[in-house]
Structures are given as structure tokens and as C-alpha cells.
């Protein structure tokens, strides 16, 4: 599933190049001082300690960093882990530890750290996204600490499609190189959908390893007619929902059904 995992150095660049590239790829620089973890180089030859750290430069971060405003994930920045927008409940294992992290990530968005409950085989989290008619792409960056088990995870999007209730797996996408930031190797995962989910769908991320799994920048977008790269991709295969996916959805549904009310307090003025 992850044959293209490789480590990429955050190269030492000239100040001008650093400024230019920093604007495009946030954080791909060895930071001066506090941030942890030495950069891991591809050939192992560079010795970061003998070269001066790159100069700090001024950059800019948009509200949604490098992700689109019209992202069809309900909560693309994990600000609401309330059991509806994002739910870390496993019907089998109970509450799975998830923590929202503010750290450097490939697209500058917050990350979610997912772990298995103590003594349990998997940890999971599921988040809502709104489908639409026509071709779509779903994507997410997944990360592991450098040197840990990069496999032992599964990410899928399940929902009602025109072809029926089904799920598609997101796979490591070689169109974007893995990125190493602060000791975490991030790999881009995606799936191309010939026709989007009929309505609400759910990104289902499972961590099957003891090491934490990092999740960042979930995106579900329509594919425009101009985007030839995506339109030339083969659509992901649909498969029946796994028992865990079905059980997770039922659990989510039950929680939603407690929300007939608690209407917002009338705004006084």
C-alpha cells in the first residue's frame, strides 16, 4: 500500500530560494533552535550540524493555509471533535485518543493525532464530508514518526453512491512526494471518484499500530473540467462496507439522534 514511502530532506538552501520555496511549501526548512528532530536526508550524507541554519524569513498563511476554502469536509481543521463532525468512538473499543495538534504539516493545516486505546488493536476516527454529483477527489495527508511502522493503517471514504452504499479506499498517491517535517513522514493519500457520494459521506481512518498516526488536510473537492490530471485517473473501486464501517456509522447515527433540540439561545441583541 505504501511502496513509495521515502524520506525527503528539507534541503539547506540559499536565503532567497528559501524565501521563495517557504512561501510554497510551508515549513520545509530546518528551523533555528527549538523545533525538535533533525532533518532526515535521502542519502544520509548531509550533516546539518556543520552548516548554518537557514535564515528565518517572513511568510504568509491564509485562513485555510494551502487547502481550498470550498473544501467539502464539514470540519477540515479538526476544530470540533464532538462525536459528529469528527468522532473518535469505536463501537468495539470505545473512545480512541485523538488530539488536535498545531504543528508544521504539509499544507499548513492542523493535524489530528490518532492512537489506539490502551490494550486495543486499533484506533479510529471518522469525519463528515458532503458529496456532490460528478467527479470528485478525496485526499488526506497521513503521517508517522520517522522510523515507525508506516503501514498498519487504513483510510476509506464510505457513503451512499449512485452505485449503492459502498466505500472506496484511499491509497498513497505518488503525484505528491512524501514530506518529512519535525520527525514525521507525511504521505499523501487520495482517491478519485467518478461520481461523488450522494450526500454525506464519512472519512474513516484506522490506526492499527501502537505508534500514533497523524492526519492532516482532509479535502473533498469537485474535479473541474480543466483538471486533466485527475480526469485521466482511474476511479477508485467501490466495495461493500466492512462490518467496522457499518458499526461506526450506526454509532454515529445514534449520537445524532439525540440532537432534536438544544436550539441556540435566542440572541438578545
Amino acid at each position: 500500500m505504501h511502496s513509495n514511502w521515502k524520506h525527503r530532506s528539507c534541503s539547506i538552501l540559499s536565503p532567497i530560494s528559501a524565501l521563495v520555496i517557504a512561501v510554497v511549501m510551508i515549513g520545509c526548512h530546518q528551523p533555528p533552535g527549538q523545533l525538535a528532530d533533525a532533518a532526515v536526508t535521502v542519502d544520509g550524507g548531509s550533516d546539518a550540524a556543520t552548516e548554518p541554519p537557514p535564515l528565518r524569513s517572513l511568510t504568509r498563511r491564509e485562513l485555510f493555509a494551502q487547502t481550498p476554502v470550498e473544501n467539502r469536509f464539514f470540519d477540515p481543521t479538526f476544530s470540533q471533535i464532538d462525536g459528529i463532525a469528527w468522532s473518535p468512538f469505536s463501537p468495539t473499543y470505545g473512545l480512541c485518543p485523538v488530539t488536535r495538534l498545531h504543528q508544521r504539516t504539509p499544507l499548513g493545516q492542523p493535524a489530528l493525532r490518532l492512537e489506539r486505546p490502551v490494550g486495543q488493536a486499533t484506533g479510529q476516527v471518522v469525519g463528515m464530508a458532503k458529496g456532490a454529483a460528478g467527479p470528485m477527489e478525496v485526499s488526506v495527508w497521513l503521517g508517522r514518526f520517522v522510523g515507525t511502522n508506516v503501514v498498519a493503517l487504513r483510510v476509506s471514504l464510505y457513503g451512499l453512491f449512485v452505485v449503492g452504499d459502498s466505500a472506496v479506499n484511499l491509497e498513497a498517491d505518488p503525484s505528491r512526494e512524501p514530506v518529512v517535517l519535525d520527525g514525521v513522514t507525511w504521505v499523501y493519500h487520495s482517491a478519485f471518484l467518478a461520481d461523488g457520494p450522494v450526500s454525506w459521506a464519512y472519512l474513516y481512518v484506522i490506526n492499527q499500530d501502537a505508534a500514533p498516526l497523524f492526519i492532516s488536510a482532509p479535502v473533498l473537492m469537485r474535479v473541474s473540467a480543466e483538471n486533466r490530471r485527475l480526469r485521466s485517473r482511474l476511479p477508485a473501486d467501490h466495495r461493500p462496507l466492512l462490518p467496522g464501517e457499518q458499526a461506526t456509522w450506526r454509532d454515529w447515527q445514534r449520537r445524532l439522534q439525540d440532537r432534536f433540540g438544544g436550539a441556540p439561545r435566542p440572541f438578545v441583541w
Partner: protein
Amino acid sequence: MDKNWNPSRTAPMGLAAFVFALVLALALGASPVARAAAFDEQTGRLTLDATSWSLPFDAISELTGDLGAWFGDSGDGELTSAQVADLYVADASGLEGLGHVRLGGDVRTIRFNLDSLASRFGGRRVEIRFWQRPEGTRLNASVEWVAVADPGDTDSVVVGSFRFQPTGRTTNDGWEEWTSGEVDFLAAGVVPLSHLELQDVQPQGYHSGYATHRGDLRVSVDALEIFDVGPALVPDTACTSLDMAEVCGGHGYCAMGRCMDSAIVFGPPPVDAAIKDQYLDRQRFQFQSFAGARVSQSLMNVLAGAIEVARNTASPILFWGSLRKGVNSLRDGHASAPMFGWGLTSQATNFGVCVHQGEADLLPTPEVAPMVFSVEASNPVADLLQIGDVLVEVDGLTVAEWKEALDLRAGHAADPDAFDVTYAPSLLAVAGLLGATMTFARCERTGPNPAPCTSGELELIDIDLATLVGEPFWAGTLPAWRNDSQKCDYRFGRAVDDPDVKGYSFAGFADEGPIRTLIFNGLPDLYGTTNDAWLTAVTDALDPPPQYLILDQRLGNGGSVSTTDFLMGLLLAEGDFDRAEIVPMFERSLDDALWSTLDGCNAQSNCGSYWAWVLHEMSGMEPGLRGVSANVRMAVLNGRDVSGNDFTTKLAQYRTGATRIFAPGVTHGAFGPIVSLPRHFSEVFGGSMQLWDSIFVVQPGDPRQVFATGRGVPPDETVLQRQSDALLGIDTTIEAAKAWLLQE
């Protein structure tokens, strides 16, 4: 009493004044001159502005002294000196100076006192900026204006508070600049900006929900500056609810009779133009793409228009007010706009007086008007009022004119026809917030069948809230009675006498001859044992069935669908009603083919989050209980009913047993689950909406075409509490219900 609107008196917040405010706000809408620490590209460091008041975090001693910094742990306990000293990082990895501070783990909060800066910034307008570098977590920064009677006094009022926002400036090693935006240092020329608080976002519970706190996450802070950006923008002067736009200006707000920068209670709009656009575009997108109510989808152009007004203003009150108005125009009773600031507006009090819409039949010209239902406090406001007093004017306008002048309807999200009844209990609070003068009319009568008062007999009671409340408040007196507030439940009388009778989880019943009255205020979740008393009361009330039933849900705050199913499952037979279809929005035609797909998908799987609520099945009700009281002649009493209580009212209409709805108006029309919307930067609350709508399928095979949200259920008999009955202690609605029940 002059009941004719004096055309010489302007109503600034009516259309003309709204335009005036808009023009003024637009004129002020150009981005302020940016003030920021200078970044040196040669050194990669910041140079603090020489004219600013700055906190370079070069030593912990900077934070003590006049700033009186308080350091708190994750349990809000105070850190020791040694723990505080450990916060300081003495190296050059910060943005400027000799070091910086690092929080996280067990160190949650730093709170500074800024009121000592009043001598420097009093009468001025300021902007506060600082930098933070998230290392797993980050800070929420907020400013707060706190009115205290005496220094060190623990009795205080938060006049206003809002959080910082990102400026968009960052560095390639992860530092982010955050700003307060521009705001007047003094609230109403009196209360200084009191506190600046930096707090680790992690432990903040509500929206963190089920997130796990990690103790190994950190965030660094450096380079805090306070810029003097000029004289205070909002004049320090008296105002009224009707002249605040003219007198206080486009950024002003009339707080208890004094002009105040509206940023203090609402928060400034996004400061960076691009971030502002992205924020508004996301608001428009999420409502357009996610809203499930079909009526809301038909009204998206109204929201879009309001968003454009917000886009083109720098006025806090106009920015957040436009967003609120636009969201509330969608007729989704579950919708609410995001909230960035809070303060006086969130602490409004009714002074212990409940006012509801009534039938003022003792006035010289009877009319429907807000009327005092109860007085349950003793204070300078409450002591002036009695049960049966009718609110006839506010700041010289009729109540209807005043509500329109202030565009109060913009704060109502549901069926517009539910507004007057729903909003009535808030009128005192709004008047108090603005420092308005309320005029009540009293007709003193005793004995049965009282005649209306003539104009000469009417006693007019003026309550000048600016004088009673505002003046002492701004002079530094915080009377304890300002906290007198009574929960209003839209009832004049109650069949059950219980101290918790207005509580959300309360259910109780009482019998008067053959008539049983079941009172409840919502439909609480029945999982676990927390609400067992509710379940027991409802079951005991309806099994075995009474002869006649009054279902008193005049306060109906909704709740759980399974609870709704349980209650109505007792009251409807299996053949009375089939199911409610809970349907999300589809960006494709909901035609027969899609219905076929929905019907065919596995009910145990997600079905695109469409689901069918089949009566009696959601609660798993045992067959012996189903419809146990289906044939009981039942009167439903409504007042303010939303969501789950919209459903109870709607379903009641399908009963086999004779049913009649008595109410002063319609229900909210919020047919679907509510979800909270995510925050996109540092809002206090991200808003809410319905992602689904409902179709009521009475009998299998009925066409599935009519979406219910946006239209409340009207009463079969419109009944308001009569003033004459109030003076006699008679609940008009209950008497009407009894009379109908006993007609059989």
C-alpha cells in the same frame, strides 16, 4: 400617553438609519493603517516598534509588577514561583530580544492586568499584537473589559471580551502573528481594558469534546506590543437605543445608555482583507453546501447579500450583525451565526420579571402586547411592576415600532411568525442592555369581569433603565440585584407546583377532576439513568390513560428523537402515523430514481445519512405501550416550541383521539437535528444549523414532497393570556383547554 409615533423623532435603526449606519460604516471600512513590528530580512528577527508599549519577554520580571501576571495550571490553580521561572527560555531562538516564554503541559494560562495602562491609553484606540509558535498546541489570546466596584472586589461584570485573530504574517520556522484588531481602550470612556489572557487551547472543553489532552505539547510566545492607533473612535457620550448610530457612530453600540466601541462586545471583524474574504467565503459556502432545510436553500441569496455587507465594512456591529442577520434569514430554527465576542450581551437580565405576549383587554384599546406574567425579585426595576402590567412603549415608540427600529427580528432564526411570542421575554433584557426607557400601563381592577380602563384611569409607569441601571453601573456601582433574573417558561399558571418545574429535564403531572395535566419543557435524552424521573413521570401520566389530558409544553426546548418517539408513541396508535423521513440535502435531483436508491440502501448502513424515523421503533417501545393514550381527548398547550417540540406538535395532529392545539402563535418549524458548526479561527462559537429536513409520511405510500422546516405548526385556537384573567390569577390558556376538553 402619546401612542402616535412622532414623525419628528427619528428611528435610526429603521431602514433610513440602517442605511446611514451602513454608509458610515462603509466610510470607515477602509483597512486601518497597519502597525506591526518590523521584520529584518537580514537578521531574521523582529524589531519592536519604538512607539509601542512592548513586552519582549526578555525576563519573567517583566510580567510581574504592574502587569500583575497570574500564571495558571491546567486545573486553574496558581503556579509556584519556580514553575513560573521555568517558563522562560533564555536564548535567541525567539523572534526578538533575549528570550521568550514557553507554555503548555501543566502550564495553561498567563493573565496580565492592563488597567494600569489606562493612564497611557485612556481615551485612545489601541491594537495589540504578539507572536506565537505552536509546537503541538497553540494559544488562544483574549482581552477582557471588567467592571469592578472597587479594586480587588470579587464582584465584577465582564463588559466585553473577544479573542485575537491571525494577521496572516508568519515565518518559515512556524511563528504566527496574532492581533486584537483595533479597539478603544476604554469601554464607555470608563472601564479600561482590564486583562489580556494567553491560554493553551487544549483543555478548553466544549468544542474539544472528546479530544485527549496531551501534556507534551508546547507553544512559545514572544514580542507583544500595544500600539496607540489614535484617539478613541467612539465618543464618550450618552445615547439611546434609537440614536446610537448617529451619536455613537458606525462602530458604536449603546450600552446601558453610554456609547461604547462595539468591538468590545462583538469583537472586531477579521483584520486582514484576504482572511476576511476567505472567512466570509467559507461561511457562505458551508451554509450553501451543507444546509439541509429546503427553505434555507431557497433563501441563500439573502445570506449572500448579507455577507457582502459584512465584506465591505470594518464596523464590528455591522460585520457580525450582518452575518447574524443573514444566517437567521434562512428560516432554519436551528441556525445561528458564529460568535466572536461576548460580554454584556451574554449576561442580559430580566431583573426577575417575566414578560410574555398577552391580550391586553383592559387597555382603552385592547391589543396584543407584552405583559408581565410574574415578578419574582425585589429590586428597583421589579418593584415598579405588577402582574398584568402591559408594556406599551420603549423609548417613546410602540413596542412594534421599537422592535422594527432596532431590527430585533434579525436575531430570530425560525419561522418569522413565531418571533413576537418567542422574543417577548427578551424585551426587558434588551432594554436593559441599551439603557432604554420602558413604559408600562397598569389598569387597577379587582373582582371578576373587570371593565377596561379609560385613558384617564390608566397608570403609566416609566422605567428609565439608563438611569436605574446604566448610571450606577458606569459610575462604578454594581448592585447585586443586577443579577436578578428569572427563567421564563411562557406559562402564566402551572398545574404542578415544583421548584424545578421550569427545568429542562422536568416532567410532572397533576389531576383536577377528570383532567390530567402533564407539564414538561423538553425531551431529554433517556440513555442512562439521569432522566429516569422524566421517563417515570411521563409513563405514569399516560399509562393507564387519563380521561382527559392537557399536554402543557408551553416551554418546549426539544431534545432527543428517541424521547420524542417515546412520548408520542404513547399518544399515537400504530396506524395513526407512519414515519418521518429525515433527509439531507442532495446536489442532485431528488427524483424517483434517487428515492429508490434511498429506499433500497441498507437501513443499517449510512444511506448518505438519510434515515426514516418510524414511529414507535426509534424508542424501541414495547407493543403493549404503543398508543396506550391514543384515544384520549387531548389539549396541547404551546408557547415557545422548537425542534423535538416542533415534532411533538406536528405528530399530535395525526392522533386518533380528538386533539386541539392552544397557543399564542406558531411553533418554530425546526424539523431536524441540530449540529454545531466548526470554528474557523478563534471564534467563541462557530454557529449551528440543520443539515437535514423532514418529510412527514402519515400513511405508507403518501407522496414525499413537502419539506417541513421553516413553517411552524399553527394553533387550532389562538389563545393569549388575558390581562383581566391575570389580575384574577387565572391562566387563560388552561381555562380554554379545560372548556374544550369538557365539551365532550
